């Protein structure tokens, strides 16, 4: 018997209904068996803010599944682990590996959401692969993780276990290079990265396509995210008369770079990837220094989509913070896992990690960003990169991500 799949509209209606009337659907088997879903994110440190938005997205999907009793006979329980350490001050790949071991060694954990950062993903993927535990990342975009060329390193056990509800830097970097060349008409660029796995990969992907588009790449240097002073690098860039800067990295170095760039090269075109599409851009950097920066995300922009508004309101009411697009991809990751579990139960099979992986692999799950399906390596088949620019909008609070990052459009695909 086939059970029709839950459509995105139904999700939205259910969300709206739950919000409007406090409608509680009785859980079908509240006291049933417990399945744990690992969630490993950098919940403290420099990326804490964006990590919590992602966490909330995943938790909301789990909560709704429990409320509606969608996975009959089972209760879903999150197993939340912190991928950051105080010594790193941000995500720490060594801690991420430890967390991956914790999840693998816990027999109740059947699937995972996360990690946020590719650097953590590279440490976790081999462990998850050996444990046959599938994870769905809402935001880590390094192409290496799913590239068959690195299969021996990141999926030694063979099958894809690293799935994504975002596309990769193999599209995020090059599509932004297209945007620099075609839309911004940049003739030259200086590229900086923050020495992390994500930042270096993104910067290299950008450079490859920028050269093809005829942008003159004046140089590529690496910033130490724990250092404070980037004036040396910026002075060098100013002296080279570059048209533009592209930064591959996250906010620990990004916040300082943005502040100092405003002092030294205020008029230059400046942009980066999803690492700087972050609340810290507005709180730690603030106006006027943040003004004008471009950032991308590796997913379609849906928080402004009228169809998603009910969900956005529910999220904001539940967690007292606005969702960003990666809160949505995290929610979508949760939906994919719930959908896989539901189909296994419906097929009358026992829930095992291997089966959960196979059912995630074959997903065609309606989510907020559309129907999610994966290729054989775990990458999402939909490859949209959205561009934003920080533009001060005095009508809204200056730290409101959804209003101060203005959606520019979809970056041109190659």
């Amino acid at each position, binding site marked *: 018997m086939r059970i029709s799949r839950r459509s995105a509209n139904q999700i939205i209606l259910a969300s709206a209904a739950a919000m409007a009337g406090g409608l509680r659907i009785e859980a079908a088997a509240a006291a049933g068996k417990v399945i744990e879903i690992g969630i490993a994110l950098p919940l403290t440190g420099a990326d804490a803010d964006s990590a919590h938005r992602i966490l909330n997205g995943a938790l909301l999907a789990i909560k709704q599944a429990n409320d509606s009793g969608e996975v009959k006979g089972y209760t879903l329980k999150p197993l939340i682990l912190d991928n950051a350490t105080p010594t790193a001050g941000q995500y720490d790949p060594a801690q991420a590996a430890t967390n991956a071991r914790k999840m693998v060694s816990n027999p109740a954990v059947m699937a995972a959401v996360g990690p946020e950062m590719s650097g953590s993903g590279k440490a976790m993927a081999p462990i998850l692969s050996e444990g046959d535990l599938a994870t769905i990342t809402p935001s880590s975009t390094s192409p290496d993780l799913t590239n068959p060329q690195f299969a021996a390193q990141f999926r030694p056990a063979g099958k894809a276990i690293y799935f994504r509800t975002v596309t990769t830097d193999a599209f995020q970097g090059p599509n932004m290079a297209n945007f620099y060349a075609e839309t911004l008409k940049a003739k030259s660029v200086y590229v900086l990265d923050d020495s992390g796995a994500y930042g270096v990969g993104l910067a290299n992907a950008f450079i490859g396509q920028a050269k093809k588009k005829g942008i003159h790449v004046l140089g590529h*240097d*690496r910033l*130490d995210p724990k250092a404070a002073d980037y*004036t*040396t690098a910026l*002075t*060098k860039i100013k002296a080279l008369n570059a048209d533009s800067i592209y930064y591959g990295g996250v906010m620990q170095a990004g916040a300082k770079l943005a502040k100092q760039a405003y002092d030294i090269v205020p008029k230059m075109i400046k942009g980066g990837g999803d690492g700087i599409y972050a609340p810290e851009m507005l709180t730690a950097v603030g*106006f006027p220094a943040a003004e004008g920066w471009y950032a991308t995300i590796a997913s379609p922009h849906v928080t402004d989509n009228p169809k998603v508004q009910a969900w956005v309101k529910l999220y904001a009411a539940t967690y007292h913070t606005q969702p960003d697009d990666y809160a949505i991809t995290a929610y979508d990751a949760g939906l994919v896992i719930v959908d896989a579990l539901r189909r296994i139960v419906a097929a009358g099979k026992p829930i095992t990690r291997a089966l959960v992986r196979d059912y995630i692999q074959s997903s065609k799950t309606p989510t907020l960003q559309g129907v999610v399906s994966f290729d054989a390596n775990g990458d999402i088949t939909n490859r949209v990169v959205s561009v934003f620019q920080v533009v001060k909008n005095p009508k809204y609070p200056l730290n409101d991500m959804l209003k101060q990052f203005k959606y520019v459009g979809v970056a041109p695909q190659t």
Partner: protein
Amino acid sequence: MTPSALFLQQVINGLSLGAMYSLLALGFTLVYGILELINFSHFNVFMVGSFIAMWVLQFFGLSGQQVILTGWPLLGVLGAALLITMLATGLLGVGIERFSLRPLRNVPGPVAMITTIGISYILFNVILLTVGAETKNFPNPLPMVKWHVGGAVVELREVLIWAISLVLMLLLQFFVQRSRLGKAMRATAQDPEAARMMGVEVDRVVITAFFLGSALAGAGGMFFGLYYNFTSFLIGYTAGLRAFTAAVLGGIGSVPGAMVGGVMIGLIESLSGQYIAVRWSDVIIFSILVLILVFRPAGLFGRLAPTKS
């Protein structure tokens, strides 16, 4: 930008870095000179200083870079913030000495040094857990005044940082060389045993060294915030390690050595970033540390380390 203007600009950048490293290096040098102790808690006294300065400036109603002051209000606010910050971090240093290091004064071996590492972690985590991990927007009331010199740009805040740092360092040098307590400090540095026999109150000397060193670190922390417009619980390590290298380069224990060493490390950082690559700066700076320790452990200015050992 012409090559010479670019060079000049990087020298200006390096001097600002150097002024902060010098202020921080003095704290290492003062304590080492007297106790032969490398005080790793100094890293995070500097970091706490930048937070205290931030809170004081916020208390005066400043937030971010939105409020700009000029004339007397500017001088008053900055002067008050500097004094309060220096006093607070000075007392923090005295507290660290009194409650955690003095009981260990006569314990041989690296016990005291390891204790300072522990205190460093405590300060680090107290700030992390109370104010959070995000980078904080540091209030800066300085107007954006710039001068063009030989094609390079000098900003008011840079000139201010150089001038105040220089004044503080000259005052310290004057104090150590001319005052009675300074004389007692030098005597203790030379031979604590003999100094005690001559009637020098060693405890007072030690407390003075911690107070002055920590107060200068507080000033460094405030300048850090004013220069970069941010602060974070993480800033102690990189700055602290480089300042420590500066102190060793100048000759740990030597006050003029710390000043010169700081400026040299600042210049090395900015010029190596320009002419080699920023990613190599740390390698170069810490290679210098190793080379100095191997070939000239007394540093450029030689001693002031106790002669007892």
